[in-house]
């Protein structure tokens, strides 16, 4: 088990390293001057030279890369040019927001998705299934930012607090996610329901509810764990559009703004966070698999 964990961690670190390197390359191959200021004011040559030196842009790219990696190893993510503050501080501000959003959306996504999927599977090919299936398909087929238009148009009157501002983006993300999850869950349920052990459970004289929710669902949740592992990092970093539209100050928006503003240190840091999240998501999914699926649990120990 320990050896397995060590290997997994090593592989994960390798992936993160590769992503960071790739991002670093993309960013630095396209690098412009740091002397442009957000307000577009002329910067005196002295300051420009100072900035160039401070960011080490006069050195060859390999030197810059080693310096960056070195700093990274010491937990130093660099200094944001556009925000004029440490990258770590900007991330520290954005990450909790994103976590709040992602967690809410995730809960909504999976709670609703699983419930709908199970319901649909239980009523396969009947009205409820087909109607919900089409609604889910529709929601799933909408560009996320398009879904957003509805609340944008019909101005909601409300108190301006955190919880409320969380509601709309979380609802949007959660709903779109739930629509996908439901389709997934339905398919998984139908796959499981056809299996022999479900028949065994019925033959024991169990209630249909117990058959579905205990015997079938436990198995149908397994493939969903993979989905969870994929969704989790996506919500953290991929919710770019929703965060942008709702002006939600999270990672996604931070990353997009940084990209648009050519704020390289933030871009690289965001890529780092993103890849860490993906890797974590995979690890989490694997761990969950172990918990949920005895076939894997036993093998791993």
């Amino acid at each position, binding site marked *: 088990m320990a050896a397995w964990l060590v290997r997994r961690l090593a592989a994960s670190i390798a992936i993160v390293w590769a992503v960071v390197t790739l991002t670093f390359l993309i960013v630095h191959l396209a690098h412009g001057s740091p002397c442009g200021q957000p307000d577009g004011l002329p910067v005196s040559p002295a300051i420009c030279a100072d900035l160039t030196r401070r960011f080490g842009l006069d050195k060859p790219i390999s030197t810059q890369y080693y310096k960056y990696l070195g700093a990274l190893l010491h937990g130093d993510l660099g200094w944001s040019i556009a925000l004029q503050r440490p990258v770590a501080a900007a991330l520290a501000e954005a990450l909790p927001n994103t976590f709040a959003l992602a967690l809410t959306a995730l809960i909504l996504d999976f709670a609703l998705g699983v419930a709908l999927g199970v319901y649909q599977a239980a009523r396969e090919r009947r009205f409820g299934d087909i109607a919900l299936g089409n609604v889910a398909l529709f929601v799933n087929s909408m560009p996320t930012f398009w879904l957003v238009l509805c609340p944008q148009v019909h101005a909601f009157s409300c108190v301006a607090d955190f919880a409320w501002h969380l509601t709309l983006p979380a609802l949007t993300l959660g709903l779109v996610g739930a629509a996908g999850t439901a389709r997934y869950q339905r398919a998984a349920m139908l796959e499981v329901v056809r*299996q022999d*052990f479900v028949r065994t459970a*019925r033959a*024991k*004289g169990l209630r249909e509810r117990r058959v579905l929710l205990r015997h079938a669902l*436990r198995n149908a949740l397994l493939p969903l764990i993979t989905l969870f592992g994929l969704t989790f990092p996506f919500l953290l970093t991929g919710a770019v559009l929703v965060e942008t539209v709702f002006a939600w100050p999270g990672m996604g928006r931070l990353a997009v703004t940084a990209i648009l503003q050519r704020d390289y240190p933030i871009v690289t840091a965001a890529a780092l966070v993103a890849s860490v999240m993906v890797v974590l998501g995979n690890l989490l999914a694997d761990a969950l698999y172990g918990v949920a699926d*005895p*076939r894997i649990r036993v093998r791993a120990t």
Partner: protein
Amino acid sequence: MTEPLLRVRDLKTYFVTEHGSGTARAVDGVSFDLHAGETLGLVGESGCGKTVTSLSVLRLIPEPPGHIRPGSFIEFAGRNLLTLAPRELRAIRGNQIAMIFQEPMTSLNPVFTVGYQIAEAAIVHQRLSRRAARTRAIEMLKLVGIPDPAQGVDHYPHQMSGGMRQRVMIAMALVCHPKVLIADEPTTALDVTIQAQILELLERLQAELGMAIMLITHDLGVVAGSADRVVVMYAGQVVEQAPTPELFARPLHPYTEGLLASVPRLDAPPARARGRLHGIPGQVPAASDWPGGCRFHPRCPYAWDRCRDEEPPLLDAGAGEPGTHTVRCWLLTEPQRRTARAPLP
């Protein structure tokens, strides 16, 4: 004769296939009795409706696409299972009538311990506490001969071999001491040596617990060794039904005859050992289009016009009491046609 424990009359289970190829008449008018304490063998080739028959008894047919036709009748302990409310039906399932399936690999839920799965029926039907259920599960495992049951109870199915899993299935079925055990090809997926173990176990348990067993199989050898009576099915119907020794000594339906002749036999005299086998020509037709008349007539060496046109009823072969040996074949009315052709040595 005593009252049968389970009486199946004119059971018809059809499947509506969705894409226009019609209705599959998987089970089409099956009748038989199962008496307390006996072992009834149900044999026939793949697709002849054995599984559907057994599932129909517990109303486990997936609906849709399947449905049991009105007019069918399955009586258990004086009650028609087909008209029972779901709640009452559940009280019988797993409690009075239990079932084990062909595939021990897939018939167990991979995410629960075998102990839990064994005990679940007892928890539901007898309201056992968790502790008591666990003790019961251990007892059952001991009963079916799992070494070290106290440990085995916490194992997951994938940690067990095929033979052990089938034992677990049996333990699971027997946990409430049912009156009837339906075993749908319980040994088909297993090796011969393991098959022998399982058959032996079933025999022992029947002697100990005294339940009736409906043993479904396609292997005539298994039936010969284990069953008291045999029902032979073909194309959704019972074609012959007799006590085991009678059937093997005097197979009357040409299909039964053919089946027996198809089997390569270990006890064949060396002279016959490498000769040709006498298979049945042709193949089982699809359930959605059984031939008219006698369903076996296209493959039957004796068939004549009547077989094509008229569906034979189950006729009494007249051995012992009426109903002891019945056959669905016109040959019974015109026995001379059999000798006239004499297709078999």
